[in-house]
Each structure stands twice: as C-alpha cells, then as structure tokens.
C-alpha cells in the first residue's frame, strides 16, 4: 500500500516537472523572441567557444569549433546518414512506446476498475517498477540478445510504468459526485465507464503518456549507446570512438531537438483531444 502511495507521489512529482516545461517553456519561448535576452547566454557561449577553438586553447579533438559541428550536421543531412539513423531511432521509439502504452493503459484500467485485479497485480507491478529501467538492461540483453526486440522491450517497459500508474490514479480520482450524478441518471455500467469514468481519466492518462514518451526517448538513447549498430545513439558512440567530437555534438543536438519535438507534439495532441474540456488542473491539484 505504502508502495502504491509512493509510486503515486513520484508520479505526481513527475507531473509537476512534466507540466513545467510545457507552461514555462512556452512562456520562455515567447519571452525569448520578444526581448532577446535569452540569446545572450547562448551567444556568449558560442563566442567564447569559437574564440577558444580559433586560438587553440583546447585541442580540436576535445572541443571542435562550432563551425565544424555545423558543417558536420549539414554534411550528415546532405548524405542522408542522419535521416537514416533518425528514422531507425524514431521507428524503435514508436513501436516500443505504442506497445508500452497499450499494455500500460490496459493494466492501469484493469487495476483501476477492479480491486481484485489490483490485489493480484500491484505487488508484482510495484516490485518491477522499483528497479530502474536501466537495471533491467543487462538481464534483458542476456535473455533477448542485442537485436531489435531488446530495444522494443526496454522502451515499452520505460513507457509502461508511468502510463499504468497515471491511468490507475486517474480512474481512482474520478470525482465521486460525477459517479453519483451518473447513478442518479441510472446509467448502466458500460455507460458509466464510457461517459463518465474514461473521459475523466483522459487527462491523467496524457500526463502518463507524456512522461512515458520522455522516458522512452531517454531509454532508447541509452540502449543505442550500449548495444546498437545504428540509430542516433550509435552515431554518438561512433563519433566518440573515431574521436570526431563534431559528429558527437551534432548528434546530441539532434537528440535534443527530437526529444523536444516529441514532447511538444504530444502536448499539442493532448490540447486538441481535450478541447471539449473546461480548463483542468493537469498536475492533479498541485500547488
């Protein structure tokens, strides 16, 4: 029990973190364009960086010039290597994430609707989710080898846990008076679920999905760093092995941009799907 509460609590804390970039990020973005102050730090960093590499304060193997990174990035785009690796990474995330979400939502709904199912599954589920995703990686590599299935399973697992926890939490926190109204209208059980419980749960599920996607992307990069021969993570490792830090930096930039786009894309989808809803406190009644 305490463990479930703990899991909720972590999820809630994560929600707070997750809802932050959405709000403050958009805010900062506007501010960035409006006043330009936000460009000062990056511009100074860039200036210092190019100055340092021009005057060879540091060896170019350790810090390549910004121009070199930019050239490499363009070159990778032109040769198509970048898109190839990006496509492979994206495909892995989509398959794993879809798999994880499906299982996560089913698990969360089953545990949320039936105390009995929760009694059977939640101790095992909690025990499994206590081990960090990366903790499973060596075991998964032994059992599954280092093929595609390894990536799918790790990514699915990374997204499954937050999705299941948030779905469960969402179902459990459907306001009691909604259910009472439905009962007063003599809704059948399936009506109750379709018209009341699921619509009220969607925001919580989306919190889980967004967090799950972030986790999925993080795990993908790690798996690719450790065991892969293609993909963005592999590009980074490859660049490191060849001591081509320009390639490493270019790949890191792409990893960041893709992470950002995935998160913002899901946020936009969420907004669109929840248009019917009055303004709702997504973070679940946070401060």
């Amino acid at each position, binding site marked *: 029990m305490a463990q479930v509460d*703990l899991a909720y609590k*972590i999820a809630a*804390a994560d929600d*707070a*973190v997750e809802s*932050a*970039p959405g709000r*403050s*990020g958009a805010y*900062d*973005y506007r*501010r*960035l364009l409006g*006043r330009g*102050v*936000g*460009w*000062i*730090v*990056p511009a100074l*960093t860039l200036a210092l960086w190019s100055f340092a590499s021009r005057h060879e304060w540091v060896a170019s*193997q*350790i810090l390549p010039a910004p121009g070199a990174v930019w050239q490499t990035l363009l070159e990778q785009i032109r040769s198509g290597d970048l898109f190839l690796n990006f496509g492979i990474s994206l495909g892995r995330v989509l398959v794993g994430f879809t798999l994880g979400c499906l299982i996560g939502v089913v698990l969360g709904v089953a545990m949320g609707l039936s105390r*009995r199912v929760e*009694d*059977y*599954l*939640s*101790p*095992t589920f909690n*025990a499994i989710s*206590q*081990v*960090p995703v*990366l*903790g499973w*990686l*060596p*075991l998964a*590599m*032994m059992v599954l080898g280092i093929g595609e299935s390894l990536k799918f399973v790790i990514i699915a697992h990374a997204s499954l846990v937050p999705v299941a926890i948030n779905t469960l939490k969402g179902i459990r926190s459907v306001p009691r008076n909604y259910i009472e109204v439905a009962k007063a209208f003599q809704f059948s059980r399936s009506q109750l679920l379709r018209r009341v419980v699921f619509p009220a749960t969607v925001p919580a599920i989306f919190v889980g999905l967004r967090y799950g996607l972030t986790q999925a992307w*993080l795990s*993908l*990069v*790690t798996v690719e*760093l*450790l065991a892969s021969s293609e993909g963005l*993570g592999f590009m*980074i490792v490859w*660049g*490191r092995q060849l001591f081509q*830090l320009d390639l*490493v*930096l270019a790949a*890191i*930039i792409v990893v*960041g941009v893709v*992470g950002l786009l995935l998160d913002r894309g899901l946020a936009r989808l969420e907004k669109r799907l929840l248009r019917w809803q009055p303004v709702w406190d997504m973070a679940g*009644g946070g*401060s």
Partner: protein
Amino acid sequence: MSAAAASLTSPRLRRGLVVPLLALVAWQVITHYKLANVHLLASPSAVLKSFVVQVKEGELFSQLLASLRRDLSGFLLGAFAGLLLGSAMGVWRIADRLFGPSFDAAKQVAVFAWIPLISVWFGTGESAKIVFIALAAFYPVVVNAYQGIRGVSREHVEVARAFRFSRLQTFKKVVLPAALPSIFSGLHLALIYAWLGTLGAEYLLAPAPGIGNLMIDGRESLAMDKVLLGVLLAGLVGFSLNALAARAEAYFLRWRVRNA
C-alpha cells in the same frame, strides 16, 4: 510472528503473492526440465545459492558501497548546483531571462547522450561518473526549485510587504517555506535520477567496482545469477532511497497543514 501469520491470512496479501509464486514455479520448472537454454537461465535455487555465497564473501558490500558513494557524491553536487541555479532563476527575473531558455534547451537532450562527451572531457574514471550523475540530478532540482519559488502566492508576498519585511526576511519567512515542498519534490526526483545515472555511468564509462559493473560483468560471463543479483540490488537501493527521501520530506515538512 503472530502478526505475520495473521497478515498471511489476509486476502490482499494472498492475492498479491499469487503472481510471483507462479512465476517462481514456472522458472524452476523450465530450468529443471531444461525447457530453455540452461546455460543462460539459472534455476532459482542456483541463484539463491549464489546470493548466499556472494553475500558471505563480502565483496558485494564493497561493490554496493562504491555505487552508493558515487551516487551520493553526484547527487550532492548536482543538487547543490541545481538549488543555486533554480533559486537564482526563481528570485531574480533577470537570471530567469538569461538562463531560462538555455536551460530549457539543454534539458531537452536525453541526459545519457552527454556521456560520450563527458568521457572526452573528464576521462572515464570516477570524476566523469560523478559529473554525469550530478548532471542527471541537476535538472529536476532546478525545475522544481524554480517552480516552487515562482509559485509562491502573490498575496503572501504582499502581506510580507505590508509588514515591511526586508527582501531577506521575505525570502526566509515567506518564499522559502512556501517553496519547500516543491524543492523537496525536486530533490526526491533527483535522488531517483541520480541512481539511474549511477547505473548508466557504470555501464558506459570505464569499469570500476559497483552494482552496474557487477551486472555488466555477469552478462559478459553469462552468469545469470550475478545479473539477477544486480537487478535485485538495483531495485532495493532504488526503493530504499525513495523511502528515505519520503521520510526526510515528511520530517522536514511536518509543520505543514495538510489540506489535500
């Protein structure tokens, strides 16, 4: 003893035990009748035996200790830096405007992607690992400290102003207490991320004693028992750090009126 016996009869516990027991039986059956590659899949009894041996040898403790030391050093470093930047951005608008966008951009990069770069700049030894763990712990602390301070209600600050509190007084008596829950959430999250980072750092940087290393070694020598032991320890440490953080949070925030 009697309490344990009583709880065994509770349906919740009995139900909770069904799935793990089934899994255990299936595992034993599979290994016993060699339904799968036995070289890979050690039987539960073999794993248990290996646990006992490893614990007795005491080498395990040094591995665990090494991981924990790394984890905590990284966490402290990252949390300290995170608190500094997060509160600076929360208190001074100009700091927020200067660093906010850069921080947001940097945060988008999946943190493990920095490891190869860190390995060039800091080597692959202990310092590189600690720097990486600190980075993993840094982000959630900044976000939560910033949000907590920004989220302080305007009315409270106005009351403080009406009482002619100095800036320092306002911060100490109004802003900090109101922001503390969020700051603790950030630290709690940071503890979780730091542990994740510790495992990742041990996988990806130079081998040195530690739980992550135990697992990687076990995988390479196809010693399933070692890997499982590592999984168990990773889970236990994660769980204990969680529980510890929750305790500390409850203790330090005990003055709060619960309104949830």
